[in-house]
């Protein structure tokens, strides 16, 4: 640790678990999405899991710990320009949580995942599998949403690539270990930045309740018991 730096815990366990589960499931979706009908059953199950995770993350963005909240990391254009200057100058990051650009990336990724899950619900593979809501629409509509599902996946790959490139930029050119921080929750920050926002951690029990709510919502969408 350099002089004038301090270690601060910023990411709570739910955020970290969400992140890495999503990474694993995303890789699984990539594989099963390209592997044809044998894997389609598992592709759909993993899709439900991702939808539940994303819905949980949205709820957590309102009720979670300080740095998990949208209000703490979505900021206006001037803050984004300021952030960009910081990044290009490779100055140590003054942001304890997501920086303003990264914050918008979080929202864009969540929305793209939501769109992916939504179109997947109505998609079909012209063979033996179709999403649980495909029966509600015509074949033509289902086909169109399947095309969106395929296009949006390429967009997701692009977004994931940009996200990864940004993290590697931080690691390589700014000597900031964001990947490690997403495992441990602890970030190394300039001493003056860490004090800026006091981090309040929300209860993990609340996270479990919200995850259960999200999972139940997915169950209702998939099974439509009513």
């Amino acid at each position, binding site marked *: 640790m350099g002089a004038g730096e301090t270690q601060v815990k910023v990411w709570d366990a739910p955020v970290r678990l969400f992140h890495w589960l999503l990474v694993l499931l995303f890789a699984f979706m990539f594989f099963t999405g390209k592997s*044809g*009908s*044998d894997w389609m059953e598992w592709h759909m199950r993993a899709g439900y899991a991702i939808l539940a995770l994303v819905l949980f993350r949205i709820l957590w963005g309102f009720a979670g710990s300080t740095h998990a909240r949208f209000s703490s990391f979505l900021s206006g254009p001037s803050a984004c320009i300021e952030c960009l200057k910081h990044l290009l100058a490779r100055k140590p990051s003054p942001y304890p949580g997501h920086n303003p650009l990264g914050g918008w990336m979080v929202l864009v990724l969540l929305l793209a995942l939501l769109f992916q899950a939504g179109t997947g619900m109505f998609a079909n*593979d*012209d*063979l*033996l599998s179709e999403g649980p809501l495909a029966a509600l629409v015509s074949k033509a509509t289902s086909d169109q949403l*399947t*095309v969106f599902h*395929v296009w949006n996946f390429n967009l997701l790959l692009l977004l994931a690539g940009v996200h990864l490139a940004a993290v590697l930029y931080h690691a390589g050119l700014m000597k900031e270990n964001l990947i490690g921080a997403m495992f441990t929750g602890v970030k190394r920050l300039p001493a003056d930045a860490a004090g800026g926002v006091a981090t309040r951690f929300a209860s993990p029990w609340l996270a479990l309740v919200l995850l259960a709510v999200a999972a139940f919502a997915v169950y209702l969408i998939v099974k439509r018991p009513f």
Partner: protein
Amino acid sequence: MRTKLLATVISIGVLGGASLEALAQAKPDVLVKQRQAAMTLQGKYLGPIGAMMKGAAPYNADVVALNATFLENLARMPWDGFDASTKGEKSKAKPEVFTDTAKFKAAADTLEAETAKLGAAARAKNEAGVRAAFGGVAKACGSCHDGFREK
């Protein structure tokens, strides 16, 4: 009189032959419709068997026999619709259909063979045989879609 009649008969014959030839040349957009219709119907008759295989519907040997027999015949219908004249038509057929013709033909033959097995087992009311053959049919559909159909 006789020659006149003969001339008429011949000219009708020639005209008729010409128009028959024109009819025999199905237009490219009709050929695309033909193969898409054959595919749609295959999906229509495969679906209920698939639901039974997954356990989503109770096994019904009569429905399986009827659907598998339709399927066996439908599996032979799309291929002459992939005529070179349809290359420019809007469809999901990948260019490989027309460039990698040997592989495409092999994929078509596989589907015909697999659906024939399914049809035979279904008509014999052999449920175990149907279950064994079904996987082969699904694989034949899927692998050909992967190689020769745009998403």
